[in-house]
């Protein structure tokens, strides 16, 4: 199974290496995105010194994590999921389904937009700058917890995208998907605590950006409680199981167009 993922990864990299200028476009976009994020933070903090208890450096960490995870989503998760949606519409998903491997695995590793991963680097730099400006710094334990929670964040976002994409088995016209995801994902720029109650719950459990972005940031800013970690892990397991079940449930509705 790992070999299969490795092969797809290598193919993806080779394919993308043909279009090297795209790197400069992606890098330019990344610089713009970071610039806007910092400008917005500067505007906010020109009117206040703390947002719901978060200082500017701490929010810089959240911004960095949001950009970093966004890079992972745009490089690996989103292109695969968008391909699923198009192939369900065109009836081309048969080619993936007839392979002698798990269908969910196959559809999740076929595409790689490697230049989008520039955001992972720029996001990491922003996180680094934020951490260096913190008073008291960050210990190794917190850094490790941060990395683990970051990985968990990617799992949350993958499950969320898979659930959205599986909707294609019922709704044919899904052109709004990436707009919907981007809109929801923008909420992750700010600590989940600023949102009023009902919105906070939906941003945590319905659209798991709260878990994906705010919780790793808590690890770096000495806010993390062990109970949060337990809930996050538990919820990740539940969400992954649900996403898998939902994918198989949707698959049963698929009849193909080529057969």
């Amino acid at each position, binding site marked *: 199974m790992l070999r299969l993922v490795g092969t797809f990864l290598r193919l993806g990299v080779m394919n993308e290496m043909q279009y090297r200028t795209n790197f400069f476009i992606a890098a330019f*976009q990344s610089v713009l995105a970071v610039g*806007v994020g910092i400008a917005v933070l500067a505007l906010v903090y020109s*009117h206040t010194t703390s947002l719901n208890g978060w200082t500017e450096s701490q929010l810089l960490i959240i911004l960095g994590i949001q950009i970093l995870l966004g890079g992972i989503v745009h490089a690996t998760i989103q292109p695969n999921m968008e391909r699923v949606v198009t192939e369900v519409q065109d009836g081309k998903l048969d080619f993936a389904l007839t392979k002698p491997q798990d269908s969910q695995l196959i559809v999740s590793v076929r595409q790689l937009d490697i230049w989008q991963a520039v955001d992972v680097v720029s996001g990491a730099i922003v996180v680094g700058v934020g951490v260096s400006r913190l008073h008291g710094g960050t210990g190794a334990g917190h850094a490790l917890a941060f990395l683990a929670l970051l990985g968990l964040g990617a799992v949350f976002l993958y499950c969320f995208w898979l659930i959205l994409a599986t909707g294609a088995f019922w709704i044919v016209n899904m052109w709004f998907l990436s*707009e919907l995801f981007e809109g929801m994902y*923008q909420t992750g720029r700010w600590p989940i605590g600023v949102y009023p109650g009902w919105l906070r719950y939906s941003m945590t459990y319905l659209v798991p950006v709260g878990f994906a972005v705010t919780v790793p940031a808590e690890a770096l800013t000495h806010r993390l409680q062990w109970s949060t970690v337990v809930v996050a892990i538990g919820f990740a397991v539940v969400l992954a199981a649900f996403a898998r079940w939902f994918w198989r449930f949707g698959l049963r509705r698929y009849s193909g167009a080529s057969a």
Partner: protein
Amino acid sequence: MTESAVRSYYDFYATSVRTQIQTQFQYRAAMWMYTLGMVAEPTIYLVVWTTIARTHGGSVDGVGTGAFAAYYIVWTLVRTMNIVFTPFGWEWRIREGQFSGWLLKPIHPIHYDLASFAGQKVPWIVLYLPIAVALSLVFHPALHPRPVEVVVFLVAIWGAYVIRSMNAFALGMITFWTTRVAAIFQVWFLAELLLSGRLLPLPLMPQWAQTAAAWLPFKWTFYFPIEALVGNMSTGSLVVGLGMQLLWTAIMAGAVLGMWGFALRQYTAVGN
């Protein structure tokens, strides 16, 4: 323009608008989802500024929580009006040689975009209204427009639509000269985000940004229509605002027509 020409333009616009309204209503689920993605942006701004206002005794530089709520709820109405044919679409059309077919048609191609996007506004706004009511119940906007403000708002959102359309057309037409346009478009959108009032009400921006905004078209497509409805603008400044919209419409239309004339001499396409 002769009377029959006016008549045929009118027929063309009326038919396109009607067709678009009927087409869009076919995809209600998709429209809801898209609207949900779009409403996220102003809701985030609203939540952030409301939080700041609360920690500073209820207002930021004199803008209270109710005023913020009104601003960002009306925001989506104006944003909906501001959705126009994207410059990236022009890039695609020009690169693919699509204009060969368009040029054979009896009226200027931009009328097709203007008419079809105008028609889409109706179903989108109808769909947003229940969301606006829901947002109002949560955030309690302070919205008490005078009748003249409502009238100016209704005119100004169409002014915003025309200005932003022309602006996007002119931008897209740069593709006639160079194919590396994505970077130019993005810088433009960025300037718009910061200097239009999309991000936050312009008076809360630094002074230099407000000065820059005064010389650019952006604020007349975002800040002015919103403020016309939610703010306390005098009748005089409302009229001046409409005049500025007219001025920018003329400038942008001039740019579009001028570029179009030059571009046609540049344009070559393969095939067909």
